[in-house]
């Protein structure tokens, strides 16, 4: 059994996992999760229709090519416009009611949107279930990266230019300091020392991890641009949630009536949070479809909403760091389980049996195991760390009062 472990290609597992941690899926999930965090984490709005908002972004970009035949840049204002209309349709009838109603309406509306864009009737606008393909070429083609080359996020990669090096080092160090300090503040012991040590340790880990990553040159530009979008939006939301606006939003999560008695128009604030979170999510949809040059309606089904929600809860609600790290870990873990099980199956001769019980008999069963184990992991997280990785235990403890 141990021999089998040593036969496995651990280098491959590490590369696949770390590539997923910083990959396109984690990137667009992070954008969507930041948006969902504004709605659910900060404002307490139970939005189960985030995939609908992401579709608004993806289709805004796609329609610039398919229907309007204009530059894909017009997709950005159009996406924000669609998200606003979608948010108003969702919010106006439901935000006066309790949050449960919002949850039902959002899930229905997001599905409705998906069924409309994939319908035959509206094929002229959205190209039905085929989706829209081959757009954003100006974006993908004007790239400093060689389409057939291999790139990593290691700042000293031989392929990296000076700008890329500086940006990567800057983002890695800022992120390490933020995450490290946050963890240090949660730990008991010599905090002042930990506030210095932890960021350094995390920076070193991130650098080591980045060295392992490997991306094709074709989608590398959208990956870099996407993470910059994550960084900028994350910083903006971080600031916004420390402003008086954020205070009202958090107050509404705690008790609407109290906030209303203090003279705030809670209905308007809830609409603002819903639309802002949705508008952010459109960037996730945009970056995802740009990275592939393709929009597929079925990428924006309920599954996407719940995977984003899972990733957010994993990271921790009402924390910007949580909403970014959560999706990274979600995709990292799911990729790890997937590649690990694949390698294990290979090393054990195509079958995994424990005490004579056949667990995996062909590699096509691995997908189901990934889902199952992720689910189990989420259950364990809820039992042992209900606040998520970055959530605040003290805040959770106040819930029962």
């Amino acid at each position, binding site marked *: 059994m141990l021999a089998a472990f040593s036969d496995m290609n651990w280098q491959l597992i590490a590369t696949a996992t770390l590539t997923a941690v910083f990959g396109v899926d984690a990137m667009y999930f992070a954008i969507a999760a930041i948006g969902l965090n504004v709605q659910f984490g900060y404002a307490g709005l139970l939005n189960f229709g985030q995939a609908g908002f992401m579709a608004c972004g993806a289709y805004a970009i796609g329609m610039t090519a398919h229907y309007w035949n204009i530059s894909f840049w017009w997709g950005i204002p159009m996406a924000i416009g669609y998200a606003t209309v979608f948010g108003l349709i969702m919010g106006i009838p439901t935000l006066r009611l309790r949050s449960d109603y919002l949850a039902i309406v959002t899930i229905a509306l997001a599905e409705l949107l998906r069924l409309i864009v994939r319908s035959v009737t509206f094929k002229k606008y959205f190209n039905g279930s085929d989706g829209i393909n081959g757009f954003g070429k100006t974006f993908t083609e004007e790239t400093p990266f060689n389409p057939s080359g291999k790139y990593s996020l290691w700042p000293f990669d031989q392929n990296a230019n000076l700008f890329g090096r500086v940006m990567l080092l800057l983002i890695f160090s800022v992120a390490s300091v933020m995450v490290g300090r946050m963890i240090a503040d949660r730990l008991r012991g010599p905090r002042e020392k930990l506030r210095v040590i932890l960021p350094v340790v995390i920076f070193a880990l991130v650098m080591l991890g980045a060295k392992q990553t490997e991306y094709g040159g074709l989608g590398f530009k959208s990956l870099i641009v996407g993470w910059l979008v994550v960084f900028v939006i994350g910083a*903006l939301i971080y*600031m*916004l949630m420390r*402003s*008086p*606006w*954020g*205070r*009202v939003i*958090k*107050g509404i*999560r*705690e*008790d609407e*009536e*109290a*906030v*209303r*008695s*203090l*003279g*705030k*128009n*809670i209905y308007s604030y809830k609409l*603002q949070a819903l639309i*802002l979170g949705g508008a952010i999510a459109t960037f996730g949809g945009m970056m995802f479809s740009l990275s592939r040059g393709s929009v597929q309606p079925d990428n924006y089904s309920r599954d996407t909403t719940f995977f984003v929600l899972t990733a957010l809860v994993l990271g921790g609600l009402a924390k910007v760091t949580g909403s970014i790290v959560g999706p990274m870990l979600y995709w990292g873990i799911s990729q790890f389980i997937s590649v690990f099980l694949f390698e294990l199956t290979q090393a054990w001769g195509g079958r995994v049996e424990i005490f004579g019980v056949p667990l995996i008999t062909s590699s096509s069963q691995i997908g189901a195991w990934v889902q199952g184990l992720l689910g189990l992991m989420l259950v364990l997280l809820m039992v042992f760390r209900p606040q998520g990785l970055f959530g605040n235990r*003290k*805040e959770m403890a*106040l*819930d029962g*009062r």
Partner: protein
Amino acid sequence: MDAEPLTVNGSADLSEVARVARGALEGVPATPGAGKPDPIMTAVGVRRSFGGIVAVDVDRVEIQRGSITALIGPNGAGKTTFFNLMTGFDAPDTGAWSFNGTSLEKVAAHRTAAMGMVRTFQLTKSLTKMSVIENMKLGATGQRGEKWWNGVLPFRWRAQETAIEARADELLARFSLDHMRDEYAGTLSGGQRKLLEMSRALMTNPQLVMLDEPMAGVNPALKQSLNKHIRGLRDEGMTVLFVEHDMDMVHDLSDWVIVMAEGRIIAEGTPDQISSNTAVIDAYLGTNQGKSLLEDM
């Protein structure tokens, strides 16, 4: 005031403001719906029913500016519903009501706070996962930084925020909550939450403070301190309307008492007049009070 001796309620420790307030109410007849010399709030014909039950049916009521008015009545008398109606948290079936001469019909609940009218709740509403100081700062009205487009531009609201924080700290010190400033509001005791809710309401710079059972669930020592704070509000020129069940407290604190029962106002008067009013005693204890139970059988 001139040196003319005021004998209202005979309290010796009354402040000058309180003397003026009680003096102004001196000539008001002790009848339901009595007109006041200077009403800050007037409600006429306000009626609210839930299905077949008429929760509030007030023909006329006026609240004297600068006074402490108690609203009392047995459970289910419609006091909280009346509060909800006046502050826009609920809409009456019929009726007209005004604050400072401005009609409040069709005015949304969140606008009344900006007009100078603020309420607290019977079940204390502290925003548990926010710190005490954040709770306080939320109360300030007209904040520039509460517009979303200003949120990410701190220079647009930083100065105002500093001023708000200073005022919040002042109020926290006055209500002896300053040592809890940076704690989560959820860690406060029940009494401290009452204090926090009241001081947070004061952050709106109100003219009329409506307190829904401020003393409920508060220990006697803290009651005395709340009592002092409520007097303090009046002495600073605010008008206080409060719901209370503790009759000693009502007698001690209020300049004027309004009694509700079954949705209607059944009596008004100074605390002394009310405590000897038979209609009130009947409403609280039933018309057969004092009689032997056996007599009716």
